[in-house]
């Protein structure tokens, strides 16, 4: 029972989840920005941009995240020499953020695109009819209305992203699942306890997140 009372283990447990939170936070911001740009491309009148957006989504939505993260480490870093920090852990962290963001952006893009489809076409037509440009129509009229129906799917994407962050453990970052593996190796008699604590921590973080997004979606629901 002394697994988590040992300060060294407790520290590892805390820092494991801090990595998860940092990975989730940075990747969420990058994926959101990237996802909005990709969605704008996919609905734009320019065929090249539409193709680029569709290509991105098709590639990253249909590739296992483990492969994407492996590619970031063994492809971008080991082979192509892209180093983002002198510190080993920070380098893994940023490579992880790149992988998680490119992957998650595909899902963000599709959530936004389906949100755009919930906005009646008449809204965009009326915007164009008073002389707004494509970018203005999207920014002022369509996206603010799409955002409201995109909040709930965003919640699911964020939750998936947080859990997916554990995959960065496969390239050696000591995030929560790696810490858990180490603890299980050292404390074979407390496997169930270790498992419950780690699963419970994820649940404690993510269940309120889900409820928060549900509440937000209801609050912002657009009246028609």
């Amino acid at each position, binding site marked *: 029972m002394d697994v988590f009372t040992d300060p060294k283990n407790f520290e590892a447990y805390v820092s494991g989840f801090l990595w998860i939170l940092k990975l989730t936070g940075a990747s969420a911001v990058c994926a959101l920005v990237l996802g909005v740009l990709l969605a704008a491309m996919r609905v734009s009148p320019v065929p090249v941009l539409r193709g680029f957006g569709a290509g991105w989504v098709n590639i990253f939505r249909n590739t296992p995240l483990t492969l994407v993260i492996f590619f970031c480490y063994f492809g971008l870093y080991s082979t192509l020499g892209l180093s983002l920090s002198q510190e080993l852990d920070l380098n893994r962290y940023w490579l992880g953020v790149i992988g998680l963001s490119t992957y998650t952006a595909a899902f963000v893009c599709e959530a936004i695109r389906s949100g755009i489809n919930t906005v*009646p076409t*008449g*809204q965009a*037509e*009326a*915007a164009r009819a*008073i*002389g*707004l440009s494509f970018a203005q129509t999207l920014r*002022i009229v369509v996206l603010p209305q799409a955002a409201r129906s995109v909040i709930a799917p965003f919640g699911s994407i964020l939750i998936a992203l947080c859990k997916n962050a554990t995959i960065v453990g496969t390239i050696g970052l000591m995030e929560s699942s790696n810490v858990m593996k180490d603890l299980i190796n050292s404390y074979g008699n407390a496997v169930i306890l270790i498992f419950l604590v780690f699963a419970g921590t994820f649940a404690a973080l993510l269940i309120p997140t889900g409820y928060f997004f549900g509440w937000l979606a209801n609050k912002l629901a657009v009246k028609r």
Partner: protein
Amino acid sequence: MDDVTTGEPLIVLDSVNKWFGPLHVLDDVSLSVGRGEVVVVIGPSGSGKSTLCRTINRLEPINSGTITFDGQALPAEGKPLAKLRSEVGMVFQSFNLFAHKTILENVTLGPVKVRREKPAAARERGLALLDRVGIANQAGKFPAQLSGGQQQRAAIARALAMQPKAMLFDEPTSALDPEMVGEVLDVMTSLARDGMTMVVVTHEMGFARHAANRVIFMADGKLVEDAAPTEFFANPRSERAKDFLSKILTH
């Protein structure tokens, strides 16, 4: 009604053709609308009258022919097209007010974002326009809180806020409850009296009779008749128009 047309026409369609797949929705349509003229377009559903209306500000691109507005051919895309659209007001069947903006914001959005007017000035003019269409007291509400008739009057005010050279109405009263049709037609009639150039697609024969300078009758994508309202309603020349009028005027 007297012929109010002066100078060169404002809107000219010349041999316009449009297909939706195999459907020939506009079949060699030529039409010119003079400044200050009110042209009402009627016809059975599927005759292409809404499409005709929507081609004038290029919400529907055409396959062949030319459309000229105020002496200039319609631009294909980009900034010149946006500029042209800002000079042509459009009123839709389903209002299409911006659902996330208040009524006043709906009216001031175009002047502020497209014309770069000062928000305070746009607001003042917006309120005056809402007053003109009789809904100044609804300025702070959202579209969903208004009745259909009020929403459509707000949509007319939104179009007028751009100080357009012409107004297009695409079945503006078709989605309204019967008791609200009158309030919208009143606003349109007063616009017509003030000399606005208007193209109105409608089923309101009363409006066609008393406010139009010309009635255009369309069927199967073709422009079948083009006559003064008194003449059209008393002596329709084509069988198609006679048939149409007999169906709608016997009740």
